[in-house]
């Protein structure tokens, strides 16, 4: 699918009967924050210390259709990676459903569940930490497809060479270890490894964040080329709005575990609805701005352990009013393509 087709695609709303490739329904994930020694001791002595719970992901609905690139943005700790790991099937949700091509993955029988999991792969920020330092590149790339029977007998080398070439790596280096590669090359190894199991859906979690701009451009171009060649679907997680704007058809914005806005990319960057999205966009430094006063959002990002009541954004929101402190705004349609969770939308 060409990028323009996809763009047109993204500006179409989901129909009633359409089955997205991946769909989350009311998905939440909670983590219990373990007490440290001091707190445990205090509790033993009778102090009222509770184990704290983080709502890393809080009732999220998300749909991604085949061929789409959906960007997921938000500030540190808002739950992007947690959501990405749930989507990729490597972290169970505490609540809610994950549907793969319309089927609840929790109810899929063994073989189908395994395939559904294999079709979803994840690429991480730090390629070094996610690559086994004691394995040669050929084994890093070839192990999983071998185990899953994707390589025909005697075809290992040929298969690995093909995967490496596709990710822009010279197969001549396949006997090397990860530390013998640069950051950009290591990310290519991570990409080759993910693609080797023939996935359809890729979750990229800050996949270019650690790279220099010139190398970042090479990897982003590779992602776009692979999307066309292999008809891939991406959930692209990044805190870099420039990258997300460039790559995505649709953008989802999170704040403290909740989705606050969702719209086609163009719309988000030209006509954002949610006050948080607008503040975020104003804060992004742009290369076209010169000696300009930096716009600022007041206040710190609140602790996810103890998020503000009602709309989580209310202490920082310039437009907050009474209702915002007490009632959680629902993610509602602004129009058929655009959803936002702000009480202001209820005021005519």
């Amino acid at each position: 699918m060409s990028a323009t087709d996809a763009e047109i695609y993204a500006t179409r709303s989901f129909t009633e009967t359409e089955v997205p490739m991946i769909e989350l329904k009311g998905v939440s994930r909670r983590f219990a924050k373990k007490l440290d020694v001091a707190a445990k001791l205090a509790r033993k002595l009778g102090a009222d210390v509770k184990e704290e719970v983080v709502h890393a992901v809080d009732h999220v609905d998300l749909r991604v259709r085949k061929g789409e690139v959906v960007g997921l943005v938000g500030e540190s700790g808002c739950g992007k990676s947690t959501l990405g790991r749930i989507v990729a099937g490597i972290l169970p949700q505490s609540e809610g459903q994950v549907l793969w091509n319309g089927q609840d993955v929790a109810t899929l029988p063994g073989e189908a569940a395994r395939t559904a999991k294999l079709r979803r792969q994840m690429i991480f920020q730090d390629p070094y930490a996610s690559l086994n330092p004691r394995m040669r590149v050929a084994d890093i790339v070839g192990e999983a497809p071998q185990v899953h029977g994707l390589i025909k007998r005697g075809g290992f080398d040929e298969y690995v060479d093909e995967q490496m070439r596709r990710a822009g790596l010279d197969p001549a280096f396949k006997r090397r270890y990860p530390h013998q590669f640069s950051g950009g090359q290591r990310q290519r190894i991570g990409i080759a490894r993910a693609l080797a199991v023939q996935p359809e859906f890729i979750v990229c979690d800050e996949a270019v964040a650690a790279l220099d701009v010139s190398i970042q451009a090479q990897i982003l171009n590779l992602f776009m080329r692979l999307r066309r060649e292999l008809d891939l679907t991406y959930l692209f997680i990044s805190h870099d709005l420039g990258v997300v704007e460039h790559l995505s058809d649709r953008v989802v914005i999170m704040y403290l575990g909740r989705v606050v806005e969702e719209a086609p990319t163009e719309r988000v960057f030209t006509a954002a609805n949610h006050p948080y999205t607008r503040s975020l966009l104003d804060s992004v430094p742009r290369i076209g701005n010169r000696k300009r006063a930096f716009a600022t959002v007041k206040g710190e990002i609140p602790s996810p352990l103890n998020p503000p009541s009602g709309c989580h954004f209310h202490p920082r929101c310039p437009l907050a009013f009474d209702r915002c402190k007490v009632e959680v705004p629902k993610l509602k349609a602004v129009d058929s393509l655009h959803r936002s969770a702000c009480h202001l939308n209820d005021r005519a």
Partner: protein
Amino acid sequence: MSAPTLEVRNLCTHFFTRAGVVKAVDDVSFTVDRGKVLGLVGESGSGKTVTGFSIMGLVDAPGRIVSGSILFQGKDLATLSEEEMRHLRGNRIAMIFQDPMMTLNPVLRIDTQMIETVLAHEKVSEDEARQRSRDALGMVGIPSPDERLKSYPHQFSGGMRQRVAIAIALLHRPELIVADEPTTALDVTIQGQILAEVQKLCATTGTAMIWITHDLSVVAGLADDIAVMYAGKVVEYGDVGEVLDKPLHPYTHGLIGSVPSRNKRGEPLRQIPGMTPSLLNLPEGCAFRARCPRAQADCVQRPELREWLPARLARCHHPHREEAAAA
């Protein structure tokens, strides 16, 4: 006209390692005037931090400044003794690190650290030192500074900690601040707050600042001048607007082209082929040669930093001169 706050001339800082001599900083020159911000940009390993450390007198063995001068208000820092340097540091020149814990002591309360810093360089009463600390915290936008003074570093968020580190750097109203990627690890909304405060500060106090970053967009909004480094050398230097709008050097050109917002959505990004060469075996002549679309036979000769247009310098035999000269 008075002397610039800082003038770095032909600075070379090399590391004498077992594998060979690493020319981390190799013929770097720039000037920073009072109240101005110089953006020092370049990719990982290009020598930005070593340049900053050289100015601060913080380069450790196996590294040392092998030649060049660092004129701070006309006085060459490279010739000062460690004792004289220590007196200047944290007093008239200060550094802000990417990791605020390089500045902060984790086991001491903020007030203890700040008051000690004031008293180390000035003969004032403790009350006055406390007052100064409070004012500095207020200046970087920390709410209820009186209360905050009594906290420990771990009780702050990353953004708050960085603000405290900046406040400490401001305690003596230094004439020069070297800031090494202080907002890189922070969220955009917090980065925006800090950049706004820094901007206000330089304008009101006349502090000169070197802002080290790999993010061209930050420099675009913050700096007056920009110096672009590649493989230990400044390859382009000039007014920030001019350089970003009409770069002379092919590397700067490529770097700006790689920024996603400079490209049409969905189209392939313009990319610089290849990767940064190892400083241990740089090619002969121009270090950018193997990646440069404009390279010609004479690029095996080392190019010098040269003024191609008024106040526009580039280290290149074939810069984008016509485009840059066009209005």
